[in-house]
């Protein structure tokens, strides 16, 4: 059991996603600190991957910028060590299976535990393949976060029962990215999740405005926002942390 539950003790959780090294690791560190200072409850750190198949164009571009900037897995670990000197909110990594597998599952996950990473989100590891990393995650106390999608239907109960940390409920079909409307019947999905587990459930994919975040947080335990933050990094570059801090405050105030 990791520290993730703490993120849900302060009302509804606001969870920003930040791609490490976009445009550079110093900006990532400043962005994380700005988000935490303004009420972020849990930080989702993306380790860039060359071919992020679950991402829309905005986060794809962030991955490319970060890799072009020379980000390596070891540099991301150093960033987290540095952040952990003062950042106490739970942090999780979001990356793709090959980044972990290639580094060596045991080596990667034990390092996560050592530097203070609480969980791992791997969008290309569905329930059926979780044994690839789960035994090692359990050994080191790093939660392997389960995702549930609008198409999960008969699978929701099965996934929820085994879930650890929190459940990442994908709001819509498709890839990450800002959406004007979210039409999935999320309330029904959340109610099935609630029947099967006590762990918190946060909704992500497509959320960008305070109104959307409030709506999502009202029916769950929190809102995850990625592309809307990455867009500000793309727009403001190294000056983005200040803008993102203000944005996080607005979003957290809306869902609190």
């Amino acid at each position: 059991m990791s520290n993730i539950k703490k993120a849900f003790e302060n009302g509804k959780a606001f969870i920003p996603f930040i791609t490490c090294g976009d445009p550079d690791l110093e900006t990532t560190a400043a962005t994380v600190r700005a988000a935490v200072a303004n009420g972020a409850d849990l930080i989702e750190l993306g380790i860039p991957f060359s071919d992020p198949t679950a991402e829309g164009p905005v986060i794809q571009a962030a991955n490319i910028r970060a890799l072009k900037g020379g980000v390596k897995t070891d540099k991301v670990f150093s960033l987290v060590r540095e952040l952990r000197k003062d950042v106490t909110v739970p942090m999780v990594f979001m990356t793709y299976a090959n980044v972990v597998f290639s580094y060596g599952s045991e080596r990667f996950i034990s390092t996560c535990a050592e530097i203070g990473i609480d969980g791992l989100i791997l969008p290309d590891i569905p329930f059926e393949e979780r044994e690839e990393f789960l035994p090692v995650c359990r050994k080191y106390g790093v939660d392997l976060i389960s995702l549930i999608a609008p198409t999960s239907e008969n699978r929701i109960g099965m996934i929820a029962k085994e879930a650890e940390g929190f459940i990442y409920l994908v709001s819509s079909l498709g890839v990450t990215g800002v959406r004007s409307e979210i039409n999935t019947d999320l309330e029904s999905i959340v109610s099935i999740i609630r029947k099967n587990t006590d762990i918190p459930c946060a909704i992500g994919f497509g959320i960008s405005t305070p109104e959307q975040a409030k709506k999502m947080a009202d029916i769950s335990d929190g809102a995850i926002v990625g592309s809307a933050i990455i867009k500000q990094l793309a727009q403001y570059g190294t000056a983005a942390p200040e803008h993102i801090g203000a944005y996080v405050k607005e979003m957290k105030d809306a869902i609190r």
Partner: protein
Amino acid sequence: MTNQKGRFGVHGGQYIPETLMNAVIELEEAYDHYKNDPEFNRELSELFNDYAGRPSRLYYAKKMTEDLGGAKIYLKREDLNHTGAHKINNVLGQALLAKKMGKTRLIAETGAGQHGVATATAAALMGLDCVVFMGEEDTKRQALNVYRMRLLGSEVVPVKSGTATLKDAVSEAMREWTTRIADTHYCLGSVMGPHPFPTIVRDFQAVISKEIKEQMLQKEGRLPDAVIACVGGGSNAIGSFYHFIGDSSVRLIGCEAAGRGIDTFETAATISTGRLGIFHGMKSYFCQDEDGQIAPVYSISAGLDYPGVGPEHAHLHDIGRAEYVAVTDEEAVRAFEYLSKTEGIIPAIESSHAVAHAIKIAPAMDKDKIIVITVSGRGDKDCAAIARYRGEDIHE
């Protein structure tokens, strides 16, 4: 213990987003049902024979055999299929399956354009909508195939992300599938991706080795000593190998694209230069850097320009049942020219990789040995690119 579903040794599996899981489960259930359904198999045979022109010929390449002075060489003429490549075998199977599943729309990735053209063809035939994702770089290398797909009524989406080649087309098709599952079947073109695709595609392509075996027994009264095919994802190769896997006397040789050489960064030879990884839904060998970032591969052949290899090939390599060799651009181009001049058969630049390896090994083999080369496709689509490679600026 990892999930054993759809595994070939340690390879394979279903490494895909949760959003797609019910879609692949639905596909697996439908396939398990229809593969044993006599009506489905009758319809598919009819399509293979009357529409695609099967069985394809097994041709004794007499001049090539005499010129090389060693093993007797036969060509399995998949280039003579409708649409000019082996790709139609898989596509007719999957399109028929999609139709039975009540799907009304096909999406596909394509590298050289052969799979895209085949999918567009099957979609036209069966009255399905079709969208093909093709790397922007490949739309330039294979402009004629882009036109063909549009002529057949399909939409072609140029993919600009990443290296704008086959791997990016696969990623984009997967992304598209997650947005629209209910009415859409992803008609994957090779023996790769998540289970059940490597098995489904293999089964539909296995008609190649089934025919080779029958034809060889008829012509020579015995099995061949070697079967050679090119490998990108590996669909024509697994199709050519499948019914010989249990026949240990038959050498199975897959030819990967070495590009400018396996000691350069401009290569697509996965088994020679890659290592075990997880990507595009499967565990297999991939060209990647030390951090697991997928490498930007290169080959003159758009159809072999892929950083991974199908999981069954990875397994056949692990257990030593099949050999995998790397063939350079230059060797493939020479083979392209050689087969054209020697036999009057213009092979696809992909297939030319297999021809090139046969040219290397045949002379040292005894005259009573037999090699079968699968000519997976015709080379008309490659003429402009090969001319450019040779310094002649011709435009289609």
